[in-house]
């Protein structure tokens, strides 16, 4: 086999494997199996091919061939649009919506993972071209491990303390500790909340976390994840049982109230802790001089 063919095959193979490895179909079951998975594997294969042929093309002094990497950029942007549109379309049929921030985050991740595939296949094919297949495969695996590390974002449990809260009514107003959640008129609703409702308080660990939790999209993502994991005791006509997160503006603490189907507090805390911090809500006011000196 010629060197070029070996280079391309190694690059494509490792790139596609890395796309498969990056596809984490956990409890979210997203991308859905089998069709969305096949779509993304196919797109991963395309990305891997683009990355793998770049080195042999350069070696053959076909410098213009590299311009089709720009094609890859267009292609991947398309992936992002596709994901966004699909999730937004499905949003209407969800009992607790994901919210636009979460959707944007997911769409962005899908786009970025294709670039990461290009990186893996490019690394593998470069090392294969320079040395041989075995070092190429090793380089590909190292690149995959790097990518996996790089991909990992923070979780709510990393930036905040999550503890059980006390759910109580003052007149018609529902509170979690000292955080006002909403006004609920009906006594029947109060009874359901008092009996089955669970409350959680999310305390930001620092000012960065306070701003993360202030983001409405981040809070919607928490509500969605928790409802997806523990179930929510509501249907389309009982809007009052939608999980809600409200913020105490003085302390930055966020109160979550939900009427889960599974009223297990430990699991609820676990579910909240494992919600990803959204890229769009992630801010670092402490990294600035003004933000830092404003802390007390």
């Amino acid at each position, binding site marked *: 086999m010629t060197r070029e063919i070996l280079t391309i095959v190694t690059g494509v193979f490792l790139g596609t494997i890395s796309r498969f490895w990056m596809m984490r179909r956990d409890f979210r079951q997203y991308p859905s199996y089998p069709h969305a998975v096949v779509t993304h594997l196919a797109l991963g294969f395309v990305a891997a091919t683009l990355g793998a042929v770049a080195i042999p093309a350069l070696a053959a002094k076909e410098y213009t061939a590299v311009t089709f990497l720009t094609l890859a950029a267009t292609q991947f942007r398309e992936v992002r649009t596709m994901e966004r549109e699909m999730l937004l379309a499905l949003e209407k049929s969800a009992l607790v919506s994901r919210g636009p921030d979460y959707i944007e985050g997911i769409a962005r991740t899908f786009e970025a993972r294709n670039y990461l595939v290009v990186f893996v296949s490019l690394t593998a094919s470069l090392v294969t071209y320079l040395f041989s297949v075995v070092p190429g495969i090793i380089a590909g695996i190292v690149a995959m491990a790097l990518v996996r590390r790089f991909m990992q974002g923070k979780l709510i449990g990393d930036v905040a303390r999550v503890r059980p809260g006390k759910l109580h009514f003052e007149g018609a107003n529902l509170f979690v500790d000292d955080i006002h959640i909403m*006004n*609920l*008129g*009906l006594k029947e609703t109060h009874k359901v909340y008092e009996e089955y409702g669970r409350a959680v308080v999310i305390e930001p660990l620092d000012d960065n976390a306070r701003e993360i939790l202030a983001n409405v999209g981040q809070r919607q993502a928490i509500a969605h994840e928790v409802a997806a994991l523990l179930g929510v005791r509501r249907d389309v*006509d009982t809007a009052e049982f*939608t999980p809600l997160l409200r913020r105490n503006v003085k302390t930055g603490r966020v109160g979550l109230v939900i009427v889960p189907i599974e009223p297990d507090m430990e699991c609820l805390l676990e579910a909240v802790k494992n919600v990803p911090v959204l890229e769009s809500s992630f801010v670092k006011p402490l990294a600035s001089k003004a933000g830092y000196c404003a802390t007390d």
Partner: protein
Amino acid sequence: MEVSITKAILAAVTITRDERVTGVPVFYAESEEEMVEISVILSRVLEAVAHDMGNGVYIIVKH
């Protein structure tokens, strides 16, 4: 695209008879129990939430 009204008072239910509540469909109830009953029905039908104004008026708000 689906368009729906949100954050709007869709109706009010009251037991006061002094006609303070205007501008939205108002349902007059004879008793506290009837007011609650009407509020439950309205909130289910409209997929909205009943809020207690604290002065004998319930409002049905779509969120």
